């Protein structure tokens, strides 16, 4: 189990030498306790204390980086079973599969698609992460050639899938310097694969049917000098995956089986319904998801789900304050006030756009709090509204001086009128009622 900061502190030198980068040993202990610092940073620890603290303070799921350069993907370093307990930190890498039995054109089209797919959402660029090359030809040369066609790992991270050590040797001769992920070491072949992974410094997937077998093989690979491991529980069904992935993540977090403290690998194509498998991996603990090529619609939905699930619940995505035109508003269109909580914003925009009613939406900065919470907590005030009207030049956009405020902000209506000089109308509480409200009440 994890140790508390004070228990960790007892094992530190208590010299406050700052060599670890923290001002005091206690500060370092607090970082260690949350898995945010590495015991190696302390130069004065004796090996016994280092081993003890290392075991209890490193992240329960090891961070592993696949690929090199700007598109490399780091996964793992997770601390919880459910996102509401804190947050999920590292979204799974989604790797699209190609086979070394395909033509050059087929391989290139997938590689281009992975490279070029970008979904822009709320200020983030969502991308697919890499390409998985599957050795189905039986030929090591063919495998190596396809790895080369897939960019050799220099631009996109690669997963190399085979069960033949000579095929890996040929492929690693091309891609070895770019940290491709090697899949998979099993009870039978882990020795040569671990040796290759060590030689090239590549991360390695361990594959076995039960957590106990997985732990046995990861322990041997770690002993052989491969630190960056992933685990593939080889599930037979979606339900089987969820059950075993939950067990693995729980063992890692509760530190009952350190040999399971690695990110999970999921082959989405092996489970029939690709979209369901990809979604399952995103929702339930996968670090790397290998998927057959999927449609644009599925890619966008999958990337959006991944963004949603990996949003920090304590720091909701916020909308930049400002005045947003909806449905090409003119100078007689209503001005609606709301907060910068992304859910509020998107809900309102959704209803307004669907209604085709032109309007100006004024977003004020409530630090991502909803209307109800920000009014109650004093984060939405008449001064803020007055400042925002001025700052964003709303008076220059419209000929009228009427501001529609959210229903839950009704207690502020008088104060806002006084502070802004604008006439205030109290709108509905529920965004769904906005179109009807505007239709009924809005006349300039």
């Amino acid at each position: 189990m994890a140790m508390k900061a004070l228990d960790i502190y007892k094992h530190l030198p208590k010299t406050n030498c700052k060599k670890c980068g923290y001002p005091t040993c206690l500060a370092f202990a607090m970082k260690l306790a949350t898995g945010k610092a590495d015991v190696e940073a302390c130069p004065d620890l004796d090996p016994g204390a280092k081993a003890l603290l290392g075991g209890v303070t490193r992240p329960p799921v090891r961070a592993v980086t696949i690929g090199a350069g700007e598109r490399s993907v780091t996964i793992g370093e997770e601390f919880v079973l459910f996102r509401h307990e804190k947050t999920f930190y590292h979204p799974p890498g989604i790797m699209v599969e190609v086979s070394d039995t395909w033509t050059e054109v087929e391989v290139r089209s997938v590689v281009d698609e992975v490279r070029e797919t970008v979904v822009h959402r709320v200020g983030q660029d969502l991308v697919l992460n890499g390409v998985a090359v599957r050795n189905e030809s039986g030929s090591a040369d063919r495998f190596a050639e396809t790895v080369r066609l897939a960019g050799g790992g220099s631009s996109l991270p690669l997963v190399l899938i085979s069960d033949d050590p000579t095929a890996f040797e040929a492929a690693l001769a091309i891609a070895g310097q770019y940290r491709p992920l090697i899949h998979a070491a099993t009870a039978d072949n882990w020795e040569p694969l671990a040796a290759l992974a060590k030689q090239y410094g590549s991360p390695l997937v361990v594959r076995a049917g039960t957590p106990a077998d997985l732990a046995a093989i990861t322990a041997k690979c770690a002993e052989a000098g491969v630190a960056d491991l992933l685990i593939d529980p080889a599930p037979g069904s979606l339900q089987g995956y969820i059950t075993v992935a939950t067990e693995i993540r729980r063992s890692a977090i509760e530190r009952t089986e350190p040999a399971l403290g690695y990110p999970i690998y999921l082959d989405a194509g092996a489970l029939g319904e690709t979209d369901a498998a990809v979604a399952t991996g995103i929702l339930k603990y996968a670090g790397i998801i290998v998927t057959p090529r999927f449609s644009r619609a599925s890619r966008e939905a999958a990337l959006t789900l991944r963004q949603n699930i990996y949003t920090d619940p304590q720091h909701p995505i916020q909308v930049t304050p400002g005045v947003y035109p909806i449905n090409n508003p003119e100078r007689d269109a209503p001005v609606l006030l709301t907060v910068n909580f992304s859910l509020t914003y998107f809900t309102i925009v959704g209803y307004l756009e669907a209604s085709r009613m032109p309007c100006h939406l004024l977003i004020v900065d409530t630090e991502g709090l909803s209307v109800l919470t920000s009014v109650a907590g004093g984060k939405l005030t008449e001064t803020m509204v007055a400042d925002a009207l001025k700052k964003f030049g709303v008076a220059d956009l419209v000929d009228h001086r009427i501001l529609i405020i959210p229903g839950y902000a009704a207690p502020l209506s008088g104060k806002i009128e006084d502070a802004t000089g604008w006439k205030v109308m109290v709108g509905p509480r529920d965004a769904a009622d906005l179109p009807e409200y505007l239709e009924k009440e809005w006349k300039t």
Partner: protein
Amino acid sequence: MSENSPDKLAIREVRLGATRAEGGTREVSYVIGGDRGLPFCGNDAGRRLVALEICDDPAIWPPVVRNYVGDLVNNPEDWAQAAERRYGADLVRLNFTSTKKRGFNAFADIASTTERVLEATTRPLIIEGSNDPQVDSEVFRRCGEAGEGERLLLGTAEADRYRSVAAAALAYGHLVIAQSPIDVNLAKQLNILLRETGVPEDRIVIDPYTGALGYGFEYSYSVMERIRLAAIAGDDDLAMPMISAPTDTLSIREVREAAPEEQDAMAVAWEFYTAYSAFVAGASVVCVRHPLTVERLKKVLEA
């Protein structure tokens, strides 16, 4: 953790619909709930139902669905029948969208549409009545009466307007959907209110409200997980099965503005990812609007 305790059901069993032997006219009734642990983790009963939503006035229905189902949108009983027979839905959710019109007063139509849809279907039925306090009482009375004995699942009760739904459910032997705005504590409060009104606990299904994918779905996902965890930890006021209706997902920009040839694919992909995730979070009934989504969900659940 107590979730592996074999003795106690974490989630109460709720029976939807009534066969002739049970006092209704359905060919089947469904039991949902009965789970002891986390969803899909071996200790849950795995009773998951896919509902197709239909409506009695398609004016505000998503264009992509209207285009796909064609003339069915003008005829709720044919649409409901197709939902069961052609699209493979486990059940139908009939939305009385006509009640959203200003000055609605066609109460007799509510009763007759309910009767006709019951006549056209053989499985349990979910009915979404009005959401305007001025007509709630009469709308719920009419559809409740028309379906007396059928153990309809009636929606939607909310904290500030639950009495009409509860009254109809109590008077005619139906179940209630209890919706709260993405909040564990509010879900619990509403269940307590309903209990105090006399609605038995095995006649309540929790709707934690489902935000659209990309537009807050993560809040709904986490609230569903939290409700399920609370139930596993022994909170009786949250130990009801959940229903999720990711209906907003078809109104989002990505779906509305998709190229014509991609509209169905986009609608189905977004709806599928949301609906499937709702099941993983713990929902027992998930309601969707595109027929192709029903087919894909059923395939995955049956695999």
